[in-house]
């Protein structure tokens, strides 16, 4: 079956979406990622959508759902690389991607993930 690859890098999972996804493929990615967060004991998920030429309400909801599920599973998700035309269209469509953290590129996305995970570590440790 057709699948979008998920790469494991230390405590992070990396996904680069490079194809125009049909709805079932998007659902498969959501399921695969959720399982992988648990089996790989990941703390962060980075999703690169720089190759996506459009994000409609279905893909937008998939991104929001992945972010919400990962949070419940004690992992952070950051979506990086959204093209400006895609962002403009998403807002006009009526989707604000609430709850989804974004960064301009992979480097900034990784930095954001690291700082979020560090902040969580401090919260868990309680006041010094």
């Amino acid at each position, binding site marked *: 079956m057709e699948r979008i690859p998920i790469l494991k890098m230390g405590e992070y999972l990396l996904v680069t979406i490079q194809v125009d996804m049909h709805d079932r493929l998007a659902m498969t990615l959501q399921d695969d990622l959720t399982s992988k967060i648990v089996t790989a004991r990941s703390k962060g998920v980075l999703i690169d959508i720089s190759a996506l030429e459009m994000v409609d309400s279905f893909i937008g*909801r998939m991104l929001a759902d992945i972010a919400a599920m990962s949070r419940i599973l004690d992992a952070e998700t950051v979506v990086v690389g959204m093209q400006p035309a895609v962002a403009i269209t998403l807002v006009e469509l009526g989707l604000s991607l609430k709850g989804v953290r974004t960064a301009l590129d992979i480097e900034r996305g990784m930095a954001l993930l690291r700082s979020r995970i560090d902040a969580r570590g401090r919260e868990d440790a309680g006041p010094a």
Partner: protein
Amino acid sequence: MPVQRKEERPIRSSEDVVGVRQAVRQQAVELGFNLIDQTKIVTAASELARNTMTYGGGGLVRLESLEEGARRGLRLVFEDKGPGIANLELALKDGYTTGNGLGLGLSGARRLSNEFAIDSRLGEGTRVTIVRWR
């Protein structure tokens, strides 16, 4: 209004929805749409094609390149022979859905288009027409 080019595509599966997006993109590029206008009409087409498949039980889309004086446009007509929409006003509201989507398909597609028309008859089907000008 003279129609320069016509193309018809079936919408029966989620792969067909992707095919519609690609065909709309190609025509928008050929018409000289800028990247933002391409993205808007492709996104609107994706929403409406999914509606045709999910709520209309499948159907088709006609893509028509328009020429009116100096301006160029792309008209998309989505047709299904599904159950029709009982309350159009409600169906066009943000966040309203009878399925399990976000309820942004129709209202969002309308915002992303320059012209929008919908004709639905209970038990007969639904036709949604959008136009985006360059």
